[in-house]
């Protein structure tokens, strides 16, 4: 028995000696996509994945990414973060240490982007979150970038817009207390509104919990508070319910939303109730021109619906990454060095022409970028109304 | 021959409860199985009612049909084997009437059901008085009556009785057994298992003695009552 196993070992060793070594693949650029394909917001994950894959198609069609005069093949490493913080950290660690990605794009929602950003920063791997508007995601993290504006910017933009547009002084807010994005934006909006109209001018500040579908009690309170406008920074599925229920409870004043409304599904779920409402977002699909229009048409042809802002922002994030890689002037092959180079290139990007607007990074991870106020038209399209720049 | 049980084997997990017992009951007979606590008496009845799985080698036929082919509810509704479980197990949350009605769940003969119900009430007039009370509010004796009545309604070929005397005062016990005799006279065979051996043997025509999952003695009741071994172990002298 003993001799037989020893013989086995030698045979295997001999076999190994004859395996041709040097099957090392040619250098490829790996880009990690950390997306919520399952869990609470699968639609966001889908948009992310589709946009990233469209970008990859372009690169493949061009025969690879031209970096420093050479065409380098690109590979996407798509991981599902199940819309959980824990899983986002695991996925980020995996793609950074195991798959050795050069750059990570995503996660999208702040509650995954914040912890995953910590991982990316620790491993000195550049990360671009397309959609996380929470300041904490990039704060004190030189390796973390974003492709969108921030909540502290969006809050005042909306407060100013409502004040100028309607000349209202009393506002109500309805938000999800258990979700970081709505809660954060609700706070920034409240702060900005009260700075404009004095303390107590937000007359109702109501909340609910994720997955709630009945807001009647909160809306009753809001209706009876004397508010002239309702601001609700919720996701598209909740928007439909909130707007319809508000109307059923006799609310006739305007309802204003934020960039989380910017999904093709908002209108398909909400229907006529949402026509005429305003929200701030990253881009307006209807009446778009140039590259933006091209993107929308392409996406729509392929997947059957108008891309939402997540898809558009992911597209831009991929563009930023591409530009940064090309700006490095060539890959050294040393992953650590290359990641550093990409990071510094990212932080130097100026006037990047994205489909969601121009972006300029001035050393930090947050671009200066304009917000767009969109009105939902009578045809259910998102029409550009005005833009607000920092 | 009505019921014939051959080489009945049952195990609970790894403990053998019955090591292959055999017995038979003829049409119209009253047969008792006596034995100490844990001898396997209740298990025998459960096996006939198909409530516990039997092991390979077991053979049970009822009126020439293979009992093992029938699921528990069909044993009652198709074969007419009724079973009064140990401790009566009435549905306390249902009324007396509902308990009786439930026992006819699978029966379709409205007229027969009504007749049977009248018959139960004539055997146990007390039940008739209390037909709208919840079963949980009955006294011990009344509960036993209801349990027997329920069995009477569900299957008339043979009645399996598990410790009918348990928890009853002697006088009540006698009256229950008298009623059972009456039921038997109308053509229902009875298989009764009892710890109270004297009572059982006086009631039954034949008996089997079960010890540690095996039949150790069998015979006519008079024979068993006279058997010294039975006397010593079960009759207290």
């Amino acid at each position, binding site marked *: 028995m003993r001799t037989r196993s020893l013989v086995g070992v030698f045979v295997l060793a001999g076999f190994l000696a004859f395996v041709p070594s040097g099957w090392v693949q040619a250098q490829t650029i790996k880009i990690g996509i950390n997306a919520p394909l399952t869990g609470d917001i699968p639609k966001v994950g889908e948009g992310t994945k589709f946009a990233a894959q469209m970008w990859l198609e372009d690169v493949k069609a061009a025969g690879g990414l031209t970096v420093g005069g050479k065409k380098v093949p690109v590979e996407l490493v798509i991981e599902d973060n199940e819309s959980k913080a824990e899983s986002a950290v695991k996925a980020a660690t995996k793609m950074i240490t195991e798959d050795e990605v050069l750059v990570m794009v995503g996660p999208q929602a702040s509650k995954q982007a914040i912890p995953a950003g910590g991982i990316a920063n620790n491993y000195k791997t550049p990360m671009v979150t397309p959609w996380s508007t929470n300041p904490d995601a990039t704060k004190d993290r030189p390796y973390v970038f974003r492709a969108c504006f921030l909540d502290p910017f969006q809050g005042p933009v909306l407060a100013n817009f409502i004040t100028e547009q309607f000349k209202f002084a009393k506002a109500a807010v309805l938000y999800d207390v258990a979700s970081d994005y709505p809660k954060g934006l609700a706070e920034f909006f409240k702060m900005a509104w009260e700075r404009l109209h004095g303390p107590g001018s937000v007359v109702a500040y109501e909340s609910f919990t994720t997955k709630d579908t009945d807001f009647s009690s909160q809306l009753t309170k809001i209706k009876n508070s004397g508010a002239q406008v309702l601001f609700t920074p919720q996701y598209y599925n909740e928007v439909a319910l909130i707007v319809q229920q508000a*109307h059923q409870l006799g609310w006739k004043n305007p309802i204003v939303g934020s960039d989380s409304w910017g999904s093709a599904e908002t209108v398909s779920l909400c229907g006529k109730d949402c026509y005429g409402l305003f929200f701030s977002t990253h881009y307006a699909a209807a009446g778009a021109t140039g590259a933006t229009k091209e993107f929308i048409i392409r996406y729509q042809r392929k997947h059957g619906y108008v891309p939402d802002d997540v898809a558009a922002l992911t597209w831009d994030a991929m563009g930023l990454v591409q530009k940064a890689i090309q700006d490095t002037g060539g890959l050294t092959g040393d992953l650590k060095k290359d990641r550093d180079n990409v990071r510094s290139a990212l932080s130097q990007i100026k006037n990047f022409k994205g489909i969601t607007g121009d972006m300029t990074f001035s050393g930090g991870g947050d671009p200066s970028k304009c917000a767009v106020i969109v009105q939902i038209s009578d045809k259910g399209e998102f029409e550009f109304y005005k833009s607000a720049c920092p | 021959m009505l019921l014939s049980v051959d080489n009945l084997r049952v195990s609970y997990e790894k403990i053998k409860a019955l090591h292959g017992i055999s017995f038979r009951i003829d049409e119209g007979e009253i047969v008792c199985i006596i034995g100490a606590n844990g001898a396997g008496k209740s298990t025998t009845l459960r096996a006939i009612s198909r409530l516990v799985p039997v092991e390979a080698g077991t053979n049970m036929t009822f009126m020439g049909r293979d009992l093992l082919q029938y699921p528990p509810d069909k044993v009652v509704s198709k074969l007419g084997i009724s079973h009064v479980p140990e401790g009566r197990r009435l549905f306390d949350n249902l009324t007396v009437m509902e308990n009786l009605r439930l026992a006819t769940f699978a029966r379709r003969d409205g007229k027969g059901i009504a007749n049977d119900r009248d018959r139960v009430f004539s055997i146990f007039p007390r039940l008739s008085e209390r037909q709208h009370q919840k079963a949980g509010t009955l006294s011990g004796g009344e509960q036993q009556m209801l349990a027997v009545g329920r069995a009477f309604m569900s299957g008339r070929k043979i009645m399996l009785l598990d410790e009918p005397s348990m928890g009853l005062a002697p006088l009540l016990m006698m009256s229950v057994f008298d009623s059972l005799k009456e039921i038997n006279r109308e053509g229902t065979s009875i298989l009764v298992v009892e710890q109270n051996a004297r009572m059982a043997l006086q009631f039954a025509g034949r008996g089997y003695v079960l010890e540690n999952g095996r039949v150790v003695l069998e015979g006519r009741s008079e024979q068993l009552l006279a058997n010294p071994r039975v006397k010593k172990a079960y009759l207290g002298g």
Partner: protein
Amino acid sequence: MVIFLQNLVNALQWGSFYALIALGYSMVYSILMLFNFAHGDIFMVGSYIGFGVSMGLIALASSGLVAMPNWLILVLTILFSMFLTSFVGMIVERVGYRPLRDAPRASAAITGLMIGIILETGNLALLGARRVSFPSLIETTTYDVSGVFVTNKKIMIVVVSLLLAFALHQFVRRTRWGMAMRAMAFDFAVVPLMGVPVNTMAALTFAIGSALAAAAGILFGVAYPVLDPYMGILFGWKAFVAAILGGRGSVMGATLAGFLLGFTEIFVAMIFPSTLRDLIAYSIILLILTVRPHGFFGEPYSARLRL
């Protein structure tokens, strides 16, 4: 006062859902003594089936082959979907619960939980990440009763829920099937001795529970017309709370506990800051249970599980 009345109307509607789902949950819980953690997802499936059925009927009506008014479509949708979903329930019972009838109760609960996850993920894989907009089968009409806003949908939901609860109550009280169910709730082991086919009864229990879930799912679709694969989870757990709160073996108990849960959530949000809603609402539930540790209407049941 207007605020109070308005919230009363709101609570009636919200409570109706909880009641209806708790009712279905309580069927399985009372009669088979099982935690049916798949119930919330059967609710979701029922809702999607309702969506499919109503789309089909609308297509049929608009094709001009059969003339159908909207209310008829709604009624047919509810009936059809209840029928179809009851099969889903029976399959769940057959696959997940029947093989485990002699196992520890909690093991069956875990299979239920897993079946639930499969239903959610299966839906996601099949229909994609798109959320579904339930068709508005009846035109919403809002009535303004001196400041209190009531819609025809709200009235319909409350009425249908109460009707279904009443029908179930009658079924359980009057029919022999219902009687067998009550008997099973009291003492599962003896029921076969009455000639009652237990497997059929278990399947029937799941079928009725699932049919009620489907009805709830469609009413939900009418009131909150956004469906997604995960919509059942929270409802399932809350129905679980309501069913146990209502007590074993009691249809009325589950209905009332469902209403109580709905009322608590709505009125806590009315009185207190709404950010504290869950905190206070569930503290109240905890308090109730401390004071009344046996639920509301639990009927007695035999502690003996075997014969």
